[in-house]
């Protein structure tokens, strides 16, 4: 496995991130060009099935460390194991997630090598990977290269590289990974409830609401809500119900603009934008979102954007492939019904 391309398969409690398979697909392309193989690394506890899937998506062999001590993601032991497996590799690719940014960061320190996070394009130049990554919230792009040191570590942005079709006939050698996990100083005490349904970063469709979702003065809040701000939040929640209804029919993730989060309508966990999550779904439906730069930074690379807004001059329409000018409190239910009948639900 020396001089190989190594791909870290990120998962949450045994559920692999689809972006892990995108990374294997991207690795396959590079490996074929460089004339090397693709190894996957899976760390965790009870993860045989993930190793199988790694073969199906294009790995030649899979390094597995199945250890009770790796049951929860704790960066330090994970980094220890990954560093020891990556020492001889030419390239280490990871899908980008909250976990892998930290993991890649630590492995880069362990191996004193270069790291390019959140990469959106790669090409080979004189034997090294010339990567492209967004900076300044996507206003600019920069090329990044790690010429001398190895492995070159890159994390790949979700949904940018295409996911290979799984070939269930593929298989290969599972290599048990032996690594010193060291003295683990931290302990996972438990998990809070998930604040989002469908994961925003992986979703093929995202339906987002903005400040406009509270824009319905015709709705009368219950009498016990007298505070003006609370009345606005109540109206917004009625609006977000319509956003959620549409999302449900489409199996979509629900997002929000910073304006909606700052106004207290929805939790920060679903904020899309410069200071929130970056998404790149096939379809992005922006409801009552004007299209501030802050928001656009988080969704501009969506394949198709649909905007629904009262204001025909809203900047969001400059990005949108399709637009509807009108009241989202009327349009959204009609759109949900139309999708239901089209999709046979």
């Amino acid at each position, binding site marked *: 496995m020396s001089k190989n391309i190594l791909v870290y398969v990120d998962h949450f409690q045994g559920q692999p991130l689809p972006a892990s398979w995108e990374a294997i697909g991207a690795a396959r392309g590079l490996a074929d060009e460089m004339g090397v193989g693709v190894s996957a690394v899976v760390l965790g506890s009870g993860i045989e099935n993930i190793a199988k899937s790694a073969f199906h998506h294009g790995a030649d062999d899979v390094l597995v460390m199945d250890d009770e001590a790796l049951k929860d993601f704790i960066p330090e032991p994970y980094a220890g194991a990954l560093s020891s497996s990556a020492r001889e590799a030419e390239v280490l690719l990871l899908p980008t997630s909250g976990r892998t940014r930290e993991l890649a960061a630590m492995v880069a320190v362990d191996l004193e090598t270069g790291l390019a996070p959140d990469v959106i394009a790669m090409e080979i130049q004189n034997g090294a990977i010339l990567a492209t990554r967004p900076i300044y919230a996507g206003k600019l792009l920069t090329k990044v290269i790690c010429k001398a040191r190895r492995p070159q570590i890159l994390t790949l942005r979700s949904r940018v590289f295409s996911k290979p079709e799984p070939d269930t006939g593929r298989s290969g050698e599972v290599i048990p990974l032996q690594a010193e996990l060291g003295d683990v100083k931290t302990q996972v005490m438990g998990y809070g409830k998930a604040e989002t349904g469908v994961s925003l970063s992986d979703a093929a469709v995202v339906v987002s609401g903005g400040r406009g979702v509270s824009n319905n003065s015709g709705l009368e809040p219950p009498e016990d809500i007298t505070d003006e701000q609370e009345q606005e939040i109540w109206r917004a929640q009625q609006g977000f119900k319509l956003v959620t209804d549409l999302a449900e029919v489409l199996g979509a993730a629900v997002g929000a603009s910073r304006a909606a989060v700052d106004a207290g309508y929805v939790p920060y966990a679903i904020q899309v934008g410069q200071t929130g999550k970056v998404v790149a779904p096939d*379809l992005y439906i922006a409801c009552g979102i004007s299209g501030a730069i802050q928001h656009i930074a988080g969704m501009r690379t969506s394949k198709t954007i649909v905007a629904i807004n009262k204001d025909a001059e809203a900047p969001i329409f400059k990005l949108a*492939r399709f637009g509807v000018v009108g009241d989202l409190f009327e349009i959204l239910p009609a759109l949900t019904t139309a999708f239901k009948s089209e999709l046979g639900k």
Partner: protein
Amino acid sequence: MNIVVCVKQTPDTAATVTVEDGKILWGDAPLVLNPWDEFAVEEALLLKETHGGQVTTLSLGPEDATEALKLALAMGADQAILLSDPGLAGADTLVVSKALSAAIVHLGDVDLVLFGRSSVDSDTGVTGPQVARRLGWPSFNLVAAIKEIDPDGKKIEVERMLDEGRQIVKGPLPSVVSVVKEINEPRYPSFMGIRKASKAEIPVWSLAEIGVTEELASAITWPEVFASPKVEMECEFVKGDSVDDIGAALVKRLMEEKVL
């Protein structure tokens, strides 16, 4: 409790950023404290108010890169230190993390290091975990709440924000925590704070001063930077006699274009 907050000076996020001859320009937009770092400074000040101690802000950059530190002082930080050295020109995160961790060791007796989740300019989000790794201290990344901290018993418990939900983790101090926006509401600098900060002498530390004598070489170079291609879309406005017609027409168009 001795708290160090690592901060960065960045252009204001509202700035129009352009590239000319390979140089990044932001017009006359002001340089500010990286917005994510405001949350880290605020958290340090809140912890100091409860547990006492000292808040030191640490930044790295050219000799005039004092804007972020001044804002942190104006918010209420006790002292500010700027790391500046010709050997840090063109530093990547590997080099930055080495310099910051050496400075933290040089300060000595630190209980907690705070970072914002990332900087809004280079947006790597890896410096905090890299500093933790170099120091051999636990890293708590993307923290939305410090649930408990016990400076005497040297313990900390936090809530991390993963994409899938929150993870509750505990561990020992000293440790490195990078924070997300949900953790607090940063205060505005007071008038007195701004006056104090404007008069403050910010010490500048060289690499030799913090005991780094080896040459620090970046692993990464940036051969080219350019503006993102502009997304120009001709928006097709979907119309109809009733909202039901509009809904049906939009779905039809999305199907025709094979969006779904």
